[in-house]
């Protein structure tokens, strides 16, 4: 059994010491925000550097991750699914973490940071609701008042999470955009506006590896526990590294946390899976977008020729963000990682297969990673000339999605 890293936030090896001092991952990243937020971001950057250098902070984080959040999470060999797909499949079980997704890793770390910085309140955005639930839970545990913004479309389609946030004492604010029910993007717009009105007393607990510097770095560092644990666990179990690491990409936090500890292992392919939606409308930022600036960062973006951000769609509320974390843009352009998209239908199909063969109900977001891995097996096998070993990040559990699944698949026998 792998034990928890005593220093959960450890400096990456020098060659991967990104971002640079200006928050750049190559050409991407940076800090594109109104002046009002600059001093707050500078304070956050300093506070984070001090926290990571503090043995006391690291110890508190280890304690919370172990005793409360349930780390390390298991690594599960998926025998039946692997046999069906013709690969050796290993699942990193973030669905088993407290509150049901990887989002807790980031929420715990940043809530401790907020406390350390003396924040009077925390605001957060959420898409699928997993980040909102994780933040509400962490704030309850630390006794910090918490407000969560969620698009009203998402409040409705992820109703169980809305209820959980309220039980944890968070104030949940549904967000419309232009009179229409909003999604994650509208929630971030609103959370940023809240933060701008009280940059000193409020801590903005951002939920993915997006936004202005230093957020993409902080979230990456906190989520890197996923890849670090999995790497050690797989080496323990097999003596080998995986041939490919596969994860779904919304804003990109579970994917960057999974990829980052493998970036130096050149022989390990990194594969991010985006939301192909219904084919027409989608959330496939890296595969179908071009660089632009949204929510404080320069990264791939879904926008029209006038620079207006496009409407997106995905069956999963966590993958319909029109932007993506800047480090993924860097990994894409440098050729180190590959990205592809799968449709709503492919994700729903994969979800049922995982349920039947492994007794695991993954989140709809996670189902995209499964569908992408399934599609990637043939290529990997051809390239390697043998059965590929795949490490897949099971980013969360699908309990929150039962309503959508009922709508899409019917209540009784799932259709295949």
């Amino acid at each position, binding site marked *: 059994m792998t034990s928890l890293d005593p220093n959960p936030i450890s400096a990456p090896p020098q060659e991967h010491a990104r971002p640079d001092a200006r928050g750049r991952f190559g050409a991407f990243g940076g800090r594109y925000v109104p002046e009002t937020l*600059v001093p707050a971001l500078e304070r956050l950057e300093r506070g984070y550097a001090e926290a990571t250098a503090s043995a006391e902070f690291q110890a508190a984080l280890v304690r919370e991750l172990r005793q409360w959040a349930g780390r390390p999470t298991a690594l599960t060999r998926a025998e039946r699914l692997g046999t069906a797909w013709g690969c050796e499949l290993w699942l990193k079980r973030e669905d088993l973490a407290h509150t049901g997704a990887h989002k807790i890793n980031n929420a715990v770390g940043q809530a401790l940071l907020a406390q350390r910085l003396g924040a009077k309140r925390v605001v957060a955005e959420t898409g699928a609701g997993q980040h909102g639930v994780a933040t509400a839970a962490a704030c309850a545990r630390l006794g910090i008042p918490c407000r969560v913004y969620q698009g009203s479309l998402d409040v409705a389609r992820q109703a169980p999470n809305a209820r959980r946030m309220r039980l944890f004492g968070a104030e949940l604010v549904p967000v419309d955009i232009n009179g229409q029910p909003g999604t994650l993007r509208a929630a971030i717009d609103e959370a940023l506006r809240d933060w701008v009105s009280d940059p000193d007393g409020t801590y903005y607990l951002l939920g993915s590896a997006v936004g202005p510097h230093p957020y993409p770095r902080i979230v990456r560092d906190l989520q890197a526990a996923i890849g670090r644990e999995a790497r050690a666990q797989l080496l323990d179990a097999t003596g080998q590294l995986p041939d490919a690491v596969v994860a779904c990409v919304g804003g990109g936090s579970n994917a960057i946390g999974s990829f980052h500890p493998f970036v130096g292992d050149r022989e390990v392919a990194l594969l991010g899976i985006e939301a192909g939606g219904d084919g027409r409308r989608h959330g496939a930022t890296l595969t179908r977008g071009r660089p632009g600036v949204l929510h404080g960062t320069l990264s791939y973006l879904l926008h029209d020729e*006038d*620079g207006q951000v496009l409407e997106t769609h995905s069956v999963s509320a966590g993958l319909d963000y029109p932007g993506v974390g800047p480090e993924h843009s860097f990994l894409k352009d440098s050729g180190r990682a590959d990205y592809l998209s799968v449709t709503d239908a492919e994700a729903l199909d994969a979800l049922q297969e995982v349920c039947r063969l492994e007794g695991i109900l993954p989140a709809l977001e996670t189902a995209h990673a499964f569908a992408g891995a399934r599609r990637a097996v043939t290529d990997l096998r051809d390239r390697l000339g043998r059965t590929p070993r795949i490490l897949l990040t099971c980013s969360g559990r699908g309990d929150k999605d039962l309503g959508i699944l009922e709508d899409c698949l019917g209540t009784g026998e799932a259709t295949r």
Partner: protein
Amino acid sequence: MTRPTTLTPAEAVSRAIRTPRHAGAPAVVAFLTGGFPDLDTFVEHAVAVSQVADVLEVGVPFRDPMADGVTIQRASHTALDRGASLARILERLRARRGELGCPLLLMSYLNPLLARGLERLHDEAFACGIHGFIVPDLCLEEAEEQVARCREAGLAFVQLAAPATPDARLARLCDASSGFVYAVTMNGTTGGAHAPADPLPHLRRVKRHAGALPVCAGFGISTADDIAGLQGVVDGAIVGSALIRAIEAGQDPADFVRALRPAASRQETSR
């Protein structure tokens, strides 16, 4: 309006603030959302307002306006829904350029500008009567290239100074600014839901750091009284959300701007 040829567009903005139509009262910078309520009406408004304001600020509508409150958000969405875009706004302004009665600044979030191409925009600016830019999500650290390019072209690049801005940073910010320094009266978004206890100390601080460059206060300024209260503190006031609300209520925007003047001096003076 005639301008000595030696004056750069940035200097023309500074001069318009320093020597307003109504001496003895702060200059008025009037903000209109480009393409609101529709492209044709907007450009009529722009021409009319430019005869009474000291500087006209035209905002490029953006769907995710980080620094704007509900009023400007709503106007932006309306404009976009009715076909506004940076290209169309520029087209309209170019056609009416000769009728504009005061210097014009283009306010835009960065992404629409990037999509058009910054170099191309600088070339187009003169033909459209644009004297400079305000880009609220391009903070000092990311703006170096823009600042240099504007300086070279003589265009204004207006920096925003917030109450949260520390003194050392404020000094660098004022150095990098041209046209004027935009002193944000409060933490928050335009429209002013969170009125500050007392914005004057911050405004005086910005004024001290700005040296020869004029200072205009903005965010949450909506009435003639608000503006009168700034007399002797800063050089001008920026009125945006209140003007949009007036247009929404069916008021004539030029009349609204005229009524922002101190009662004694509402008669037009020409320059």
